[in-house]
Every structure is written in C-alpha cells, then in structure tokens.
C-alpha cells in the first residue's frame, strides 16, 4: 500500500549528502579531525639511576613525533613532584622551578602559564633521547625520593594539549 507523496529515497540521500557537503564547506573550522589534534599519549614510564644517585626517566608513548620533525611547534615533557617541576622542551630548552600550577596536576589550561615559568635548568638536567615512541631525560638534583608525575604537552594553532598523566616513584 502506498500512501501520501511518493518518496525517492536515493534522491533524498543525494540531497542530504549535498547539504552536508555545503555545511562542511561553509564551516570548515568546526571540523575537529585527526589532522588537527596532536596525538599525545603516555603509555609507560621507567626510572633508573646510577650508584651516585643521578636519576633518569624513560617515558614511552606517542606525541606526533613525525610532525615534530617536520615543523616546529612547542611541545615537551613535564615532570613534577609537588610544586616542583622540570620542563624538557623537545626543542632542547629546559626549565625548572616551583609553581602552584603543577601542584594539582597539569591541564591544558595550565600550559601557557607553565611555558613562562621557571628558570634555566641546572646540571645534571638533560634531554638524553627523543624518539618516535618515547624520550629519556635526566632529572634535576632537586627532585627527591617519592612520587612524581609525567605529562606531555603541545601547543598547536594557539591551542594547548596535554597527554594523560603517569606517575612514578623516584628512588
């Protein structure tokens, strides 16, 4: 039985697709796809030290390494313990200090202020390795035994992003 006006489903589908295409074209800024957000994921953190007590952290994860190699955008690793933090920019810049910003963890909103905080990191702080699936850093001597946390950040197109946070107990 047929009631009402006949419907051409295919034509309606095509019209819908065309409308969608128009909406996409008219508002490209609304699209938030994989090509616009950096991938920031920490999956593991390992700590090791020498007999003299210098402590290194090895973090594993993904952080848009392939893009970072191609063009410069602020990104790096932050380790914090209480209000003390050290930031290893993947461009080689390292800063350390204390700030209430990190006391309750690092969120994306904290990143701009964090980038302006701290002073030049002192020896033995070092970015040892940066690879597609992780990084190795040497911590400042001011970090003591106990829990600490690691988070990766990036700033792209004026917007800040942070990874999940992993915790580790320092020796």
């Amino acid at each position, binding site marked *: 039985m047929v009631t009402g006006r006949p419907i*051409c489903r295919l034509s309606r589908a095509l019209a819908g697709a065309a409308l969608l295409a128009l909406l996409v074209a008219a508002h490209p800024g609304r699209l938030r796809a994989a090509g616009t957000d950096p*991938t920031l994921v920490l999956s593991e953190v390992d700590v090791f030290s020498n007999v003299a007590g210098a402590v290194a952290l090895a973090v594993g994860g993904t952080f848009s390494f392939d893009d970072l190699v191609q063009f410069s955008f602020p990104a790096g690793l932050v380790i914090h313990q209480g209000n003390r933090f050290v930031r290893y920019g993947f461009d080689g810049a390292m800063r350390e200090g204390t700030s209430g910003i990190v006391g309750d963890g690092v969120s994306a909103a904290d990143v701009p202020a964090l980038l302006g905080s701290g002073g030049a990191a002192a020896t033995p702080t070092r970015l*040892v390795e940066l690879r597609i699936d992780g990084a190795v850093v040497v911590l400042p001597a001011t970090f003591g035994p106990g829990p600490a946390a690691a988070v990766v950040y990036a700033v792209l197109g004026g917007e800040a992003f942070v990874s*999940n946070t992993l915790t580790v107990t320092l020796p």
Partner: protein
Amino acid sequence: MTMSTVARCTSLVLAATIAAAAARVQAQSALPVFSGDPIDLATGRPHSILPGLPLVLPGDDEVYGTGDDVIDAGRIGDVDVVVRAGGTFTGGAIPPPATGIGAAPRAEPGQAGAGTAVPFQVVLSDGVAPPAAGRALSGSQHDGRGALVVAYPDLDGDGVLGPSNADGSADNEIELQETLTVAGRQVAVIQNGVAAGSIGVSIGAPASTGGLGLVLVGGALIGQTAAQHFFDGPWIATLLPFLPPMDPTRIIGRGNVRPPNPANLLEVDLEGERFGHPPPDHPVLGTALAIPLDGSSTTVDLARSEAGLAAAAKLGRPLDPATFTANPARRVLTAVDQQGRRLLVEPVEALSLMDDGPGSTVALALFAADLFGNPTDPSTAMAASLEVGPALVIVSPDADGDLHRETIALGNAAARPIVLDDAGGANDGGATERIVVLVDGLPTDSVRTTFVPGQGGQTFTLQVNMGGTGSGVVTTTQGGVACGTGCSRWPAAAQVTLTAVAQVGSQFVGWSGCGVSTNPAVITMNANRTCTATFDLISSKPPAELRVRRAVLARGRGVAKGRVALDAVFSADPAGFQPAVAPVTLTVHDGAGGVFYSRTLPAGSFESNDLLTVFRDPRGVLARVARFVFARPRPRRVPDEHGVRVNVRRVDLAGLDRAAVGSVVVELTVGEVRYAATVGCIADAGRQTLTCRP
C-alpha cells in the same frame, strides 16, 4: 513507493552518474599531467601506474599478492612527477638525480623542526617515458594541490632500497624493512607546477662512515574539487619501493580535512597492508621496485643523512640479517663495527639471562648516540661506563677486574661488543637487575634484565610450530633466543614470553595447543609444551581488517569523552555472506581472555546502540561503562564491501581510584569469520582520562 517511482528515480540517478563519470573523464583527460595515461572508465580517473612499470591492479580485494591481481604488461607508466633534492631546479628540462650518496645533498640541521632537513622540489613532468625525466609542466591548474615526499633509508648500505637478489636472497627481510622505515615525510604545496619544501629527517648514520643513504620519493594529489581537501585524488607518483594502494586516501588519511600545509599535522599510513611488496623473483615485476642509489632511477633523488652530535651512549642488540623479519614496528639502527663494516642493531630495553652461572651469555653493542638514538661519532674524549647489579657480571671487556662496572672509551663511531652473564651461584632466579649506561657520570640508557631459573634441575622443551596460510615468526624476549620453527629447552618453571610477528601481507590469527590466547603470550614451562602460531594471508576471501582508527579519549568532567573507533571492513565471502542478512556478534575480552561483553545483532538490524563495559582495572572492579554504536562504515567503494564501525563514545571513570593499565581484545564474528584486534588502554582516574592504542 510505487514501482514506477522506483524506476524513475533509478533512471534519473543512473543518468546523472553516467554524466558525472563522462565529465570526470573529460576533465581528467584535459589535464596535461595525465596526457597519455589510461582512464579508468569505472571511476573517471586516470589509472595510477608507477613510471616504467606495467599497470598493476590489486583486484576487488584491494590487496596485492592475492589471486585476483591484474598485471597489464601492455600499459607502461610514464613520468608524471619527479622529486629532486637540493632545491636548485629553476625550470625547463628536469636535471638528472645525484649519481650516488657521495654526490647527494647532505641533510643539514633543520630550521623549522627537529633533526636535519633536505630541501626538495616536486616537479610535474610532461609525461615522457623513463629513463628521461622530461620537462616541467608549468601553469596554475594544480596550484594549491598537495605533494608528499617520503625519505626511505638504505639501512644495510648495499646501495639499493628494497629487496633485491643481486646480493643474494638471505637478507631480503632487512631490505624489505628499508621500505617500512620512514626517515621523514613532508608535504608541500604546488605552485606553477612545482612544490618546494624541506623534509625533516630523524634517521642517520655516523658522518665518519659517509652517512646514511636516503631515497626521496614522492607523489602529488591532483584533485578537481574546489575545496582542495588534501585527500582529493587522483594521484601521481615517482617510482616507489612498493605498489601503492589505488585509493590515495589509504595513504593520506581522510582526517586531513584541511588544504595541504607543511605546518599542519599530517595523518599518513605508510605501512599499509594494502601496499604491494612483490618478491624479487616475481615473474613480471622482478626487482623493478628496488631503487638503486646510483642515479639510474630518474624520477627519485638521493640524499645523505649524518647522525647528530653525541648526546648519550646506548646499548643495542646486533641483528643478523639472515634471521631478521621485517615489521613496521621494529626500529633498526645503523652502527659500524670495529672493522668499519655496517652493523645493524636494534634498541634493547629488556632482556633475559639464563641463571646458569658461566654458560649462556648475552652479546650487546655499546655505541655513542645522538638525540634521536642514532649511532654517531663521539667526541674524542667520550667514555661510557656500564654499571650492573650484583647478580650480573660484565664478561667483556674487563680492563680492571671489576665485574660490575666498566669504563669504555668511545673514541670513534665503532660499536663496542659487550658480553654479559649472570653472576652464578647467587640463586638469582626471578630477580630483576639493571644495566645502566653512564656518560659524564649521568645515566643515559638502561636495560632491564630478568633471570630465567638456572640449569641443574629438570628442563622441558618448548616446540613452536607455524600454521595457517600466511607467514611470520615467533620470538622470545629471553636473551635473544629465537624460535623460528624449532624448539628450545627451558628450566622447569621458566616463564617464556612468545611474541608472534606476522610478515607483511599476513596477520597473526592466534595460538593453539598451549592454552594461551594473548600476544605476547607467557608460557610456564612446567611440562614439555607445543605452541602453534597461526598466520593467515590477508585476503578478501575472507578479508580481515579490524583496526583502531582513533583511540584517544580526552579529559572531561567525571567522564572521558572521545572516541575509540574500530573499523571492520570485509567483503562478501565465498559462501555468499551479506552482513545485512547475517547475524553479527561483537565480543570484548580483557587481556586474559575474560569476556566483558558480547552481543549479537540479529540479521537485518545492523545498527544498534548499547552500553558496553570496556575496561576493568587489575582488581577486577567493573566501574567504567561506555556507549558503543554499531554503525555503517564509510560509503562503499566496491560493491561487495561492507563493514562495521564500533565507536566507544563515553567512558565513565567514576569509581576508578587509581591509575590502571590493561588491554581489551575486540572480536567481531560474522558467521564463521572472526576478526580481532588488541587495544591497550591506560586509565588514569586522577586525570580522568582513558587512552587506548592498538
């Protein structure tokens, strides 16, 4: 809807489709860059043929190497696009490439990003037959379109990128690994027929060895739409070390929704299983895809990458090319041995030692490394120290009689052989020790070492067999012991971790015979054990693809919002399965094989919403609930293709009071066909995040 209405609608759509196809054919044919290229009447787009090679179509399954491949030797690809390194081309006849890496541009410290960089130009060519490169096509027809350049390394230094039997077939896997290792990839925007840019490189070899030879290949996406979406094809390419998928969106992901821009994030898949890697003894293609680094392949160019300043000392595991198995996840470093020969090593983070005292040992290589972990030339005064725990000894070198600490001068790039053993007699079984590498007194690398219970007691054999239509290998993490297709003997109670790694074109299906279901699998040697690893060819009959598309859930208030998207795309199988008329079952397991969730959608109801518990912390608390959606996949590209998309949209983290790590195995069963993918997830309640990745 009446039959007449159906007929009218159908005829209207059919007429519109034919008209659109005809318009596409006309439009594409009018583009000079496609002059002389055969047009696929089904799509209205030019066929993608690599220069100098015959037309190769992967068939309906879009997978090369299966029975439905089509090779048309009567159609040979011309030159549509050329890549040149150095950035000196100014127009007219395209110059020849470098004749060897000694004459190739050297990657210099990059201005824009990390690592080193090589200037490049992607030049549209007038379509001559190789080996000529042709003349540049100028004009504004393609202004704003995107070009992609990829650098691949000649890892083994044999002067050829990709598998070749010229030096024997024993090292074909390491040569295949070269085509799976991306030293860098960058986009550029075409203006007046040329796209110029600079490609960042993160892989290199010590400068004292001449550096690492790179081959720069490329392609351009020549679309027709006004929106200039980067994925808009068709595409043209230089010679590549593989047969690319016919659909450019298999390389340039549809997540790249903006116009091409070298300063945008780029989603690419350069390890796709739909890439073709014909063996060097292929009767038609032969070694046509092996690219010599001597300038004879005129559409590509060469570059030389030297490792950076020494930033650390690292340990690696020397690789034997004869037993190596290519895999995109593996990372191969190019070191040099003390005789000046290239030495391929693999980063090592953990290893196992037999707790048997003087006996079985582990051989590693110590080398100076740059910031990216590449072996490099050290400063002349560089020395590295090894510190090992009391249950480990450094067998060699031993200059001072101290078995637990050794300082080794690294005066040149040569990797130093290191031999380690367990201390013996200390009953180390089950203990964990570390090897720490120091430079300037600071730790720069570490290897975790686990001891396998020693000999003297009962031992058992572990037999590893291979099954299925595909191929792969099984490795262990214990001291570099590899079980190819054989067996090994282990002390009683030893826990052996087996990892199945499928070769390109195959997939690991599962274990049988030894009561394990995860990969890697831990086998407890309390009896003689036999494990069979089954690998199947990736094929459309039935094809099996279930993979994580997007797997990051962002922070939210009390919940983590985002998406874990898994796509299963499959075609009608020989039995005539159609997903709309067959039941579909989705099962989610935890890493130990426990079932979180299982639901069968009855035939004919292909879309559903449901609540799904996707994660369980190690204590077994079920606290997180997600909504998932069965939905139809992207528009069908071939008539028989169907699929399922599983979207986990919302995860409630309330009740999770600490960070937890786990994995889920998503299994999709359609009739008798099973698809599975493993997703590792990390939940962090404090940050209210759940992140998962394949």
